[in-house]
């Protein structure tokens, strides 16, 4: 389990600055990120990015700022995520494990450009 909240951002990729933007939105508000990963979900550059974010009094502000960031379609917040473990490509010892966090049916909020969604 992640110790904070899980944020799913659906965004349009033009260049890697979108990822910088997502992360720096939390950084600017002094919110720590425990992990993040993302993937392209269609041929037009639509991405989904997941971030595990520590609880913070600035959390909502960061989510709202993200939801009005150009190229971001929507931001969803989940209360929890479980993870599954996978061996790393290099294999080796037990520490060499990649954890994939997956939100588990507990979506509490969704924002998109000033509107609540989902």
């Amino acid at each position, binding site marked *: 389990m992640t110790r904070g909240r899980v944020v799913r951002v659906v965004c349009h990729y*033009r260049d890697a600055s979108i990822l910088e933007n997502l992360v720096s939105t939390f950084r600017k508000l002094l919110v720590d990120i425990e992990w993040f990963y993302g993937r392209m979900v269609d041929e037009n*550059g639509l991405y989904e990015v997941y971030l595990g974010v520590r609880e913070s009094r600035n959390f909502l*502000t960061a989510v709202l700022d993200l939801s009005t960031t*150009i*190229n*971001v*379609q929507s931001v969803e917040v989940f209360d929890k995520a479980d993870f599954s473990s996978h061996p790393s490509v290099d294999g080796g010892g037990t520490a060499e494990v990649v954890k994939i966090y997956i939100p588990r049916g507990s979506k509490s909020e969704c924002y998109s450009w000033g509107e609540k969604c989902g």
Partner: protein
Amino acid sequence: MGEFYQVVIMPTGAKLVVEALRREGVKVVFGIPGLSNMPIYDELLDYLVNEEIKHVLMRHEQGAAHAADGYARISGKPGVCTATSGPGSMNLVTGLITAYWDNSPVVAITGQVPKSYIGRKSFQEADVVGVMQHIAKYVVQIKDVGEIPLWIKNAFYLATTGKPGPVVVDIPRDLLNAKVDREMWPEEPKVLGYKPFKTIVNPADVVKAVKILLEAERPLILVGSGVFWSDATEEVMKLSELLICPIISTLLGKAAIPHDYPLYLGVVGYYGRAEANNALLEADAVLIVGARLSDRTLPSYSDLIGGGKKLIMINIDPTDVMKLPIKFDVELYGDAKKVLNMLVEGIKEIGVKVSRVSWISRVKELKEYYSKYYYVDDGGLRPWKVLKVIREVVPSDSIITTGVGKHQMWVTSFWEVLKPRTLITSGGMGTMGFGLPAAIGAKIARPDKVVINLDGDGSFLMTMNNLATAVDYNIPIITVVFDNRSLGLVRQVQELFFRGRVVGVDFGPSTDYVKLAESFGAVGYDVTDYNDLRESLKKALNDSVASVIRIPIDRDEFALPQLPPGGSLREVILCDPRKGC
């Protein structure tokens, strides 16, 4: 018989940039050329010769951004600036963040080193996207020459819709020089993952808001910059008249309300008028229009919470409201002008006439009471009286710009705006040096108006090199320098809140403002009393070149009223505690 050839000139990326600007209706570009935006200038030359677009050569890129910002705030249309790569683009940063914080639509076109040089610490290379994404509404780096028309269109779309703001288009030099087979001009912008905020108002909420405002005994309207940007002055005034409701404003909202309106009480907040602060504390219903309630307007939220005050918020951006630790009784999201019209119609429909005798009487009492603290005239040139003299001499529709410092706070408290959209100042970022280049932009937007930069010595000296631009381009702006030989506002904070330990703020006698003005070809005036000021100003109004009027101000003159840092509106400091007040 000779052969005939049809010569087809393939447009370059630079040509696409300039033609795209023309198609967006751009009339003026503020900038400085350098190696990486030089192809744009090469193409711009034809448009300059044909007088389709004007170019204004600024003396520093910060000035170019402020000039574009000033142009935008006065014209309501996007201001455009350009800079070369590296130091040129980086010098735009202060100007662009100033525009961003105050929601001003600016489009900046920056040249970048060629794509093959990027990432090698090349000569004059800077990571424009990396830097600008944090200080502008959006930044895009062009990847292919064919994208240029769409992204210039997108830049104007993003800059002017939703919450306006600056947009940067960064173009590598090889793409500016690259040629395209044919020009493709998009009819519509296309930005994925962007939705301008909508006006979505539930009629029941309008009714609820109207009911609150009609039933209130002490209603108040707080006007923010959203009223300025949506040109909603008329609607606010109409609502105030119908409700017999006093108005207060933020610093940027001040420009939206004519101060000869008897129910306007002035700016609220950190350097606000005490009567405005008190009215906000005493009101039982507050309609906030186009204000995000920043720490400058409301240093302590506790002043608005509790006490049974009913709160109505009109804002274009719902997330501005969601971020506040305040519960509003009614939230109305949308363009201020449209939503205010709904309220006006709602009140007319109900047709209830209100009487606010005791509230209006109380408001007048507050105004009169605090006047005795403000308008003290005990020798020397007093800032409030200097501003009064200027107000008496210049036309009512003169445009005022300011720098940042004590003089800005005196303007906040004492300058009388008589026509909407005639005061522009750096509100959110508090950028020293804003005044002069912004005045250049304002004068180009409205050459028919008198434009005056009310500045401080510290602030003026930060961008005064642009005086050369004003002279070269025959832009007859007037700068009035409140010269207290110090970084006066910082000095004041040291005096009041750092136990009088004054450090690092006092200037020596080094600058002669008359000689400085004359060295640029401008006219300089040194005034010693109010009559002198009056006469110098009259002469300056008739000067065909830019002028500088230097006014000596006592270094110990405080900018009051003010609150202690982070303090409550109840804690207003009205007079100088060093004088036993």
